[in-house]
């Protein structure tokens, strides 16, 4: 009975997301980012993202779970180029999760914002509700020409038309790391054991990924960096990616 009461209390109150097993987070140091887009390519290769072609790209129907946004600042000749890699922020209060009528997107036990492709019916409401525009819809069923289908990642599904998809923080790698930890008889994954494709491929090591529940992890330490900020924090979506501000030498 007491257990029931505890459970009910838990169900009636939000905030359970703070008690997840893991709380995966990321920091991106914009001072180190050169905008080389290696992360974009790595993501494309890892997650079986379709190459949509020039025509579809012009129609803005490309699928890039991670994109590098470019912003120009100032007028020529005092012009500056800013980069900001934009990917799913895995918000703790994700505005995209509530409106899905079939619960195809929800928060899993790791505090990740997940997308269940099989369950998606394609209302695209999540994409409307997402302020970061990081949800990508499969407008068509895309094909991989021979022999390109050989390079598809067997750990990741290939999505069909009418399905929404987005960055998963390479959930297949997290899964794998957890399995390894279990095989080794460890309770938890060690820091640095999981690296999403983008983090792995970053030549300047601008991205750091890890467990926020572990106070000694690299990402937890980077989180406390005074340069850190979150994108569109004022919307109270509680995003889990912290960007470290570019330190301008000429300010």
């Amino acid at each position: 009975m007491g257990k029931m009461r505890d459970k009910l209390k838990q169900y009636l109150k939000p905030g359970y997301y703070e008690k997840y097993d893991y709380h995966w987070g990321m920091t991106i140091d914009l001072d180190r980012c050169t905008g080389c887009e290696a992360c974009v390519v790595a993501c494309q290769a890892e997650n079986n993202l379709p190459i949509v072609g020039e025509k579809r790209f012009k129609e803005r129907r490309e699928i890039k779970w991670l994109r590098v946004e470019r912003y120009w600042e100032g007028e020529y000749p005092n012009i500056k180029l800013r980069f900001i890699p934009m990917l799913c922020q895995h918000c703790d209060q994700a505005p995209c999760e509530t409106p899905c009528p079939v619960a195809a997107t929800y928060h899993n036990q790791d505090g990740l914002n997940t997308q269940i492709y099989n369950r998606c019916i394609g209302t695209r409401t999540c994409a409307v509700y997402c302020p970061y525009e990081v949800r990508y819809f499969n407008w068509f069923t895309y094909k991989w020409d021979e022999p390109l289908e050989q390079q598809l990642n067997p750990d990741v599904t290939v999505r069909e038309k009418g399905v929404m998809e987005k960055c998963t923080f390479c959930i297949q790698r997290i899964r794998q790391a957890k399995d390894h930890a279990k095989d080794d008889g460890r309770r938890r994954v060690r820091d640095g054991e999981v690296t999403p494709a983008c983090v792995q491929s970053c030549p300047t090591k601008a991205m750091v990924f890890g467990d926020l529940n572990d106070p000694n992890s690299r990402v937890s330490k980077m989180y406390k960096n005074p340069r850190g900020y979150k994108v569109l924090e004022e919307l109270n979506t509680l995003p889990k990616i912290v960007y470290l501000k570019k330190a301008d030498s000429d300010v």
Partner: protein
Amino acid sequence: MSDYREPTYAEVNRDILRTLLETGSRYWIVFGITATIAIVCFYIPWIYQWHVGLGASGQSRSDVWGTYLSNFIFWIGLSHSGTLLSAVLHITRSGWRKAIYRSAEAMTLFSLMTAAFFVLIHLGRVWFVHWSVPVPNQMGLWPNFRSPLLFDVMAITTYLTASSIFIYMGSVPDYAAVRDASTGLRRRLYTIFSFGWRGTAREWHTLGWAYTFFAVFVIPLAVSVHSIVSWDFAMSLVPGLHHTIFAPYFVCGAIYSGTAGIVTVMYLLRRCLNLERYIREIHLDNLGKLLIALSLIWAYINILELFTGWYSGSSFQYEALTYKLFGYYAPLYWEMILFCAFIPQLIFWKKIRSSWNIMFVISILINIGMLTERFLIVSTSLPRKFLPNAFGFYFPSLVEISITIGSFALFATLFLIFIKWTPCVSIYEVKETLKPLRRVE
């Protein structure tokens, strides 16, 4: 009209049943045209889209919602006046309701069906639409009742059920009249439709009570339906959509466009079915007054939306407003303001209010304006949300335009079937408004 003579009871039956029982070649020609357009412009593009994927539409990354959803709002809106108005006027015992309510309710029912089609067209994987309904399944998964879209599913199912019951129950005595006037298969069918109605005191009494309760249920329902439709938008964080004013704005807009739709339908029924003796100036006059009131409320809410958006000083809001007022779709915005806020003010003149032709034109202009309004809601706010890098631009594709046109034909086809199935003017309630048959005056 001074030369107006009240029809007798028998004449009411004859005049109205004639529209049902006698079918001329003109009907079949019109029906053939609308049905063909519905198939060619509505179903064939839909099947094509089903085959290739939603890429057949003009929607893209940031503007993931397009005309399918805006047309859905439009049709739901058009459905709003019929049943709601009929229920309100029934409860307030307004006599002028009786000649027009049946066709107004039919408009509700069929525009709701058209709207439901748009939900299906809108879905990326329509073949899994049953997942959004709480039915037991082998996966043990249930829909997410926290979603505004699921409110929509519930609201539209309820609305469709309630308004079909409302119109059907109101027509039962008339089905009995059709049964008595016909022979053969039709007689047998209408015997079933009319439940064996004889018009005994107990039957009338029960129907009256039940009908009033249906009306009582339908009024809060209709208000909730369009509020919920507005929440699909207002519950998001999108600047330009995330307004508290949205629910009343949508409800008011819906009743507005629905009332204009009733005027259009009345005009056509009156012309094509020779119902001049039943659909009369008083109806036009009252509907006209309602239109003025609604256009003023609608204009007020529009001004308020601009005012609060500007006053908030939020850069996102400001950007959304500027794009709406002066961006690519600005001509459409000002067209909407002209058609829905300025032109309806002409109805203040009695002369205009009593002219069927002018009112017909105004009612169509209002609905063009309302169609535009719904289009602007999706096309000006969604492509410009927060991150400028993701700004897009939305223009409907041929498939979408064709389906939009086809939806009107679909609605017309359904309505044409209806007028041959149910008396489009309520026989018994028109008789109620006539002078009672008394020996002693």
